[in-house]
């Protein structure tokens, strides 16, 4: 196996470039190196102007998501040897505006996430003296999978609906809404329903399923959305039968 590899990196300097271009770098090919190690090598040794996001290097912070050979992945969890002999293409996350090189503008996502109140909503707080809100293992299992989301936005990058209609609230926001809806301690499901049945909400999803394929944490946003569609349909029907509350 060769001891170097070509990394073809997308570059975009907003003051100079009309559109992104690519630049090839030769990087060491080591068994234990991930794509992020390659980018760090470029930044440290070859070109300090390369811009990209990263933080934890352990698949938790969700900030190093990029397109590697056209697939949205966490670059800290994607090994170079799997792409040998290369060249390996590294591009900014698809479906987001590019700010510079591999950095994308995530303000749309940051703006829409709080719309679904991704926190425990309580209309009636119990007195502190009553102790914790207890849960059975079964109640925990209901939402635990959806709580694994790290907001890495790979699902937005994989979703063609979001690519074609950036108004779509998107897979992670809906999965996070479902994470709290299914939590036995939460009382905010009715508030979230209004947001999610909005035209930009869950009905925009046409069940391509790529969000689930791309998810590095096995959250299964596609499953969460389809489950919530059933809930939303039943709740809407109920509101017609029972009249406005």
């Amino acid at each position, binding site marked *: 196996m060769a001891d170097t590899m070509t990394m073809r990196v997308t570059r975009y300097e907003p*003051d100079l*470039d009309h559109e992104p271009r690519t630049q090839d770098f030769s990087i060491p090919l080591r068994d234990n190196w991930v794509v992020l190690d390659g980018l760090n090598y470029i930044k440290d040794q070859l070109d300090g102007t390369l811009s990209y996001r990263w933080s934890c290097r352990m698949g938790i912070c969700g900030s190093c998501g990029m397109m590697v050979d056209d697939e949205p992945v966490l670059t800290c969890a994607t090994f170079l040897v799997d792409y040998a002999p290369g060249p390996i293409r590294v591009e900014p996350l698809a*479906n987001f505006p590019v700010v510079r090189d591999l950095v994308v503008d995530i303000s749309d996502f940051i703006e829409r996430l709080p719309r679904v109140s991704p926190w425990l909503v309580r209309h009636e707080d119990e007195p502190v003296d009553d102790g914790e809100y207890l849960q059975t293992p079964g109640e925990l299992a209901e939402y635990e999978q959806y709580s694994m989301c790290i907001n890495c936005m790979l699902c937005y990058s994989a979703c063609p609906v979001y690519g074609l209609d950036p108004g779509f609230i998107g897979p992670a926001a809906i999965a996070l809404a479902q994470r709290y809806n299914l939590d036995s301690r939460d009382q905010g499901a009715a508030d979230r329903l209004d947001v999610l049945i909005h035209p930009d909400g869950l009905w925009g999803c046409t069940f391509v399923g790529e969000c689930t394929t791309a998810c590095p944490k096995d959250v299964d946003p596609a499953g969460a959305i389809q489950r919530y569609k*059933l809930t939303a349909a039943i709740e809407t029907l109920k509101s017609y039968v029972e009249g406005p509350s």
Partner: protein
Amino acid sequence: MTGPGALPRTYRPRPSIWWWVRKRSYLLFVLRELSSVFVAWFVALTLALVWSVERGAEQYERLLDVLSNPFAVALNVVALAFLLLHTITWFNLTPKAMPIRLFGARVPPVAIVAAQWAAFAAVSAFVIWLVVG
């Protein structure tokens, strides 16, 4: 930057109209969506058959004549292929939309898909028995 506090100019790529041929999963998705047209076609055809039966034997024979021309046969072969794609893909997707719990445990996705195929086989056998038997 063009001045203090100005936001940098971002580049937003325009999605290609051919985005759906880029990946096998996207192509399969678009074909599945397209299959709805053929589902509608079969619904219309079934209604037409019922309507012609109600109008009497002559009308029914006339419709069968129309349906036996090569164009109609070819159309129905394509429609059947799309209908099978529709059925298979939706059967495979069902466990995602409807996770079922039995006796406190989650039913494995493969069991949900298998149950649908079993129901499909039972209904098909009943229809064949009605027509042939």
